[in-house]
């Protein structure tokens, strides 16, 4: 049994040696010079050598002999943009195939172009363009494009090895070695993302892979391992906040980068409102948001003291109609709706204009200094106007200008007379409920 196994191993070794000898004899006719790819339009040069090495490995794996990169550098010190010069240098290096190419990084995509020239005929045997994802996936893209390009070169320039020879050379280990070498080509760096949004989740923008999560902001920062020159496209999100997107190129020169502050989504909230026309009092209300935070409805109750005559410094040149001590206690109840038109277009805006309309009723108990029972009156008025809201981290501030209509319904007032219109300037602070 052991003898049989030893014999079989010997046969395999012999067969492999013969095959290797055949491959070496045929590969000698094809010697390939792979030039560094040329970055165009300001694209990072970090991938120029990577493309060439990756392609050379693929070709080498398929049986071609590769001219050493250092030798090509000696013969052609400048980037291989001049095809004639590249061909001449390759021929001088003893190659019979020259491969030149370029690449272009446009946002999240990388585009490459390559040519393979048969030096014997000086004909362009292969010319192709392809594109793939950049960003975090650029190394995978380079792998895939290199493999594709190598396969096409092999088709265009006749395989130098027989198919059975390739089958016998197929070793998973070789592929593993290629991957390891590619990973080592980029310069690993760490970028610290700084954020005031504790617990925010940072994701890579890659819809095809479901925007994979990169980490969570903890104690104001997130360490992100990446490569020098990598174009990063990130999405920062947090529960109850509008997500924000950003993109930048990772660089060791800028090891820390501050993430933009997230805008909280408006939610149910309590608000406190004060108005200039009745400064002695406050209104408390509850507000809910509907329709993608573009519509808000609220209800409020307020208690005010309205003196007949304000202190002189609060009159601003207006004389009191009733120049007496005392005043009226006003219990105010109201309901209103507000529309935020820009929220439909840019939801994460912090400064949001709005228009609003509603109804307000005032139950007034006048404090009579002289005679009789205190008069009670009730009025119902319409309110409408516009305002501006600034949303912060959970709270918001708003200023609103409202027209107050003449009384629509009233009791205990001067029925039949024309009740005057008014203008109200109010300020509001909200807290999340």
């Amino acid at each position: 049994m052991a003898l049989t196994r030893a014999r079989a191993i010997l046969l395999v070794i012999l067969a492999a040696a013969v095959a290797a000898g055949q491959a070496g004899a045929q590969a000698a006719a094809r010697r390939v010079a792979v030039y560094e790819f040329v970055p165009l339009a300001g694209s990072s040069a970090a991938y120029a050598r990577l493309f060439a090495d990756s392609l050379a490995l693929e070709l080498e794996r398929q049986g071609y002999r590769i001219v050493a990169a250092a030798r090509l550098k000696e013969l052609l010190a400048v980037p291989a943009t001049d095809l004639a010069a590249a061909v001449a240098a390759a021929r001088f290096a003893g190659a019979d195939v020259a491969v030149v190419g370029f690449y272009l990084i446009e946002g999240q995509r990388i585009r490459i172009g390559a040519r393979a020239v048969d030096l014997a005929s000086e004909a362009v045997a292969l010319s192709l363009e392809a594109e793939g994802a950049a960003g975090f996936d650029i190394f995978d893209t380079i792998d895939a494009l290199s493999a594709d390009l190598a396969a096409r070169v092999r088709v265009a320039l006749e395989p130098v090895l027989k198919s059975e020879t390739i089958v016998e050379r197929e070793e998973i280990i070789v592929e593993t070695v290629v991957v390891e070498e590619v990973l080592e080509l980029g310069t690993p760096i760490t970028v610290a993302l700084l954020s005031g949004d504790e617990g925010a989740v940072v994701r890579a923008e890659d819809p095809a892979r479901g925007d994979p999560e990169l980490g969570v902001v903890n104690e104001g920062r997130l360490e992100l391992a990446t490569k020098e020159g990598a174009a990063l496209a990130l999405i920062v999100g947090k529960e109850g906040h509008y997500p924000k997107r950003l993109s930048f190129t990772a660089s060791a020169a800028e090891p820390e980068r501050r993430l933009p502050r997230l805008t909280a989504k408006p939610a149910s909230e309590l608000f406190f409102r004060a108005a200039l026309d009745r400064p002695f009092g406050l209104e408390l209300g509850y507000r809910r948001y509907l329709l993608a935070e573009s519509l808000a409805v609220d209800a409020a109750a307020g208690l005010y003291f309205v003196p007949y005559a304000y202190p002189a410094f609060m009159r601003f040149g207006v004389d009191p109609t009733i120049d007496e001590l005392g005043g009226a206690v006003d219990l105010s109840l109201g309901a209103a709706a507000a529309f935020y038109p820009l929220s439909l277009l840019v939801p994460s805006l912090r400064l949001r204009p709005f228009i609003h309309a509603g109804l307000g009723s005032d139950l007034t108990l006048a404090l009579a200094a002289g005679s009789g029972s205190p008069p009670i009156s009730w009025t119902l008025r319409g309110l409408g106007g516009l305002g501006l809201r600034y949303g912060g981290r959970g709270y918001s501030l708003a200023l609103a200008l409202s027209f107050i209509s003449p009384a629509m319904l009233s009791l205990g007032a001067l029925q039949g007379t024309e009740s005057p219109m008014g203008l109200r300037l109010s300020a509001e602070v909200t807290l999340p409920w």
Partner: protein
Amino acid sequence: MVASRTGARHRHLARLRAGALALAAALLLSACDLLLSMLPQAGANAAFAYADPRLETSVRINGLSEVFNIAVAPDGRVFAIARNGVAEYSSELALLKTYYADAAEGIQRREDGNGPEEWQVTNGPGVDPVLFATRSGVALYLFSSAGTIYQRKLFDMSYYAVIESTVDFNAVPVAYQEEPLLLFDPLIRVLGVDFIAPALYSIREQARVALANGFNSYNATLDLLTPWFSFPSSVSFAADLTIPRVRSEFSVHRLYPRNGIVALVMGSGSYIGEVESSTFIYDRALGGQPIARFDMRGAITAASDSALYAITGDRDDKGGWIHKLRFRP
């Protein structure tokens, strides 16, 4: 019938036009007031102008159409005057009696651009009241037994007129025409009669101060004109009155010399729905600054000794309101 409908339509159209013009003018003039209403004191004034804490009683005027004026008798009774009749109220606004005019004729009313005219109340033959329009010269004899009205036009037009109490149907009022009166004293702005004394008073403008944003203030005197029941021959000082900030387009409309107080009404407009007025109550002996001020739109005011009455008419002319307001909260 057709002519009557056409006339009514023209009246409505004219009223609509006048209303639209008045509204436009009011909007222009009130733009400044509207901005000021954001401020505390102006906001309080606007609130109390409608929900007035001095309001004591309000009653609805039912059964009368085209309410257009008010009269307050020296004894405190209040009369709501409408196109088709008069309603008599006590000083507490309890309805005492309603009198109806001849349905075809109706009660004549006057809107001459000088503001709502003052209606006086005297006693006619017996104890029945007589209402007298001081500019248009219309006398309304109210018959309490039948609830009817005898209407008589005693003269065509005057600046001011007075009819004595306890007169008979042939009584002739004293009519003060404008030209001779102003020749007598060009400072006189309005006349008013005190039937208790009796005495005739005038308001004379002494100084006018133009304030910002289309407002004026005035210094005026309350003067006694003698003799009271004929053309005056002398003027004697009674009190200085300070008229605070009012719209510059306001003119002096009416003067009510009452027991202890004097009420001065300044305003614009004549039709009840468009009248805008400021009524000032002064201490009759001391004068000076007013002890009370009432700013109203769409109401005509008249004072008694202790209260101010304001009457309003419905927009559809089917009734109105009378309000009684005390002078202080």
